[in-house]
């Protein structure tokens, strides 16, 4: 280096300036590249990389059809057609094409939407099928775009609507199995993070690519049998027409497994058109969500309690005077005149309240429904038959109902005398049907279920045979005896209604409804719970008929529905008559 140069003041100043500028560059670069390194890396990545959600498909829902499975809920890709009015030029052609191709899917006055000033997005038609969308795409109109959406479709229409529930516009399942299993049905969306080109096509270059595969929702197979479900819905519809009832419900169960074969209500709705429902109560599945006083159907449980505890035998007698005093109340029979020294079997046949209050008394000291008697009834009704507690069925909005315990202030003798014939307690139809199933199947309580299994990559995988909750609910001899009493009562009370060669038994129920805190004499609910089969019970059916300000009777209004379904079930299940 020529030292002479350094001696010059201008050179030295220039060198100092250059050095200073260089120092500024270095400092700035250090700041940008070292201190703000993460920020700029992130900024660059956000421009170069894109994140794509890989949407998971919602699981399908199947029903049984005999041995086969058929789809009840599926997914369909549909298209929304939108326009950018500022780009659209061929208005007439677009209008004609939409009318010809989209038909009923176009929005009202969609032509005017093409002229909306200062708008860049106007929806012209919704829910177009792929074929319709493809035909429109072929036209290649400028300013017309397509948006893909997935829509839930229910090919069987309104069949089992309240069992299924629906999926709302946000893709969330509501009510029924759609609501209960929403998380499992939805699955888990996948994620793809990658460097993309200008066309947003993901490329494999780059070090920070992420690919998390989607997990589709589980495909569920219900225990609901399409044919039985359809029969039950038809029978309920016919009953509504016959009786003038506004609300009719029915359930069919297999007492050997706890599987629900059919579950229906009127009024109902079509899950694919849930938005047309005016009254939200139509979404409720009354079989599981509407606890009520089941009335005389509970007499089968009361008699079973008496037999199982050796307090009575069906052939034992009591003196019927058509009324019985319990503390300061007098309880009367609906059917009068079967007075005198009669058996409990006769009381069952004529559904005499006095007979069942007497059974409740005999659970105690024979004179009163003592605390011991109430404890026994509570143990059988609540803990064994599980009336008044949720069954845990895989459907949304199951109600628990209520059984007042004897240690509660209102769990007194009057309450328990009413409970002996099904008043003063709340239980759902599902609870009564499940408990009744245990009563007549030998004493084993099966948790009611609507899920038969799942369809996976390996095919159909059945869930464990049945979730056994409790064995020995009642003694097998009690179960046999109750079956005999119920069958005899039905044969005696309603001869000739059942197919010959089969064991069909059951119990009617007519319960007063509480209106404004009082039992109404102008509004009653009719019920019937029963079973059928050859040597062993193969199905349990429960039906309920009700309506505002209407009087219904179990024998007149509910029993014919049971009989209709029961006789059909014998054919459908191909049950061979007893030898």
């Amino acid at each position, binding site marked *: 280096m020529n030292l002479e140069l350094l001696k010059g003041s201008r050179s030295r100043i220039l060198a100092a300036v250059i050095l200073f500028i260089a120092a500024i560059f270095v400092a700035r670069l250090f700041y940008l590249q070292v201190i703000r390194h993460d920020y700029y890396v992130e900024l660059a990545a956000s421009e170069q990389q894109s994140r794509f959600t890989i949407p998971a498909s919602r699981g399908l829902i199947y029903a049984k059809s005999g041995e086969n499975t058929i789809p009840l809920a599926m997914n369909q890709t549909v298209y929304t057609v939108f326009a950018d009015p500022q780009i659209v030029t061929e208005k007439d052609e677009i209008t004609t094409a939409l009318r010809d191709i989209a038909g009923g899917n176009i929005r009202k006055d969609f032509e005017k939407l093409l002229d909306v000033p200062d708008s860049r997005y106007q929806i012209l038609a919704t829910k177009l099928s792929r074929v319709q969308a493809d035909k429109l795409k072929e036209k290649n109109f400028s300013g017309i775009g397509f948006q893909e959406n997935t829509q839930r479709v229910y090919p069987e229409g309104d069949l089992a609507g309240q069992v299924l529930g629906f999926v709302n516009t946000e893709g969330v399942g509501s009510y029924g199995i759609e609501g209960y299993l929403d998380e499992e049905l939805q699955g888990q969306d996948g994620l793809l993070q990658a460097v993309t080109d200008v066309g947003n096509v993901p*490329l494999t270059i780059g070090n920070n690519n992420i690919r998390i595969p989607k997990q589709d929702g589980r495909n569920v197979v219900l225990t609901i049998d399409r044919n039985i479900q359809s029969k039950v819905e038809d029978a309920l519809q016919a009953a509504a027409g016959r009786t003038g009832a506004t609300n009719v419900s029915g359930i069919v169960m297999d007492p050997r497994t706890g599987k629900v074969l059919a579950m229906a209500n009127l009024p109902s709705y079509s899950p694919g058109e849930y938005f047309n429902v005016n009254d939200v109560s139509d979404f409720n599945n009354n079989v599981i969500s509407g606890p009520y006083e089941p009335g005389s159907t509970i007499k089968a449980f009361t008699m079973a309690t008496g037999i199982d505890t050796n307090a009575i035998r069906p052939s034992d007698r009591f003196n019927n005077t058509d009324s019985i005093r319990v503390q300061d109340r007098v309880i009367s029979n609906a059917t009068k005149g079967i007075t005198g020294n009669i058996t409990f079997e006769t009381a069952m046949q004529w559904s005499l309240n006095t007979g069942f209050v007497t059974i409740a008394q005999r659970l105690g000291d024979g004179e009163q429904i003592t605390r011991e008697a109430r404890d026994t009834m509570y143990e059988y009704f609540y803990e064994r038959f599980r009336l008044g507690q949720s069954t845990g069925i895989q459907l949304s909005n199951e109600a628990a109902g209520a059984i007042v315990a004897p240690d509660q202030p209102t769990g007194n003798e009057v309450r328990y005398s009413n409970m002996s014939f099904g008043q003063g307690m709340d239980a759902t139809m599902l609870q009564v049907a499940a408990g009744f199933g245990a009563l007549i199947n030998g004493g084993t309580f099966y948790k009611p279920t609507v899920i038969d299994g799942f369809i996976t990559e390996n095919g159909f995988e059945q869930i464990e045979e049945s979730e056994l909750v409790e064995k020995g609910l009642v003694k097998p001899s009690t179960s046999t005896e109750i079956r005999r009493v119920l069958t005899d009562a039905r044969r005696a009370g309603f001869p000739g209604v059942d197919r010959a060669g089969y064991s069909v038994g059951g119990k009617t129920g007519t319960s007063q409804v509480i209106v404004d805190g009082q039992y109404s004499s102008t509004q009653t609910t009719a019920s019937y719970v029963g079973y059928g089969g050859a040597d062993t019970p193969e199905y349990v059916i429960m039906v309920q008929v009700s309506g505002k300000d209407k009087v219904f009777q179990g024998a007149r209004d509910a029993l014919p529905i049971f009989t209709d379904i029961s006789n059909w079930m014998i054919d459908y299940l191909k049950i061979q008559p007893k030898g």
Partner: protein
Amino acid sequence: MSYQQNNYYTSRRQQNWSRNQNTTRYVSAIKLGPVAHTILIALMITVLGLIYLTQATRATGYDYESQRINSQIAELNEEKADLQIENARLTALETIKNSAVAREMTTPASTAFVE
């Protein structure tokens, strides 16, 4: 007088050299200086870079192919789903009940099991 024997190991190459006294090492007449070396290294780096770019471009080409196939799969799946829905609708109970064949069917007066 003592006798001493020494064994020396000689490699085969050494033996060959010994045998072929005319063998010479090739020495290039071209001498490369530091600038030429730098240019050559730069060229080699350039060639390697080009090879890398070629490979990367080829991989990107596969990306487009993969994207095309994925789109095709999605389209076919959509078509399959549409057909399954159509099939389900055609075999729905309500459709069967309203079919001409079903309307011609009658309810049997009685059914019985044959022993």
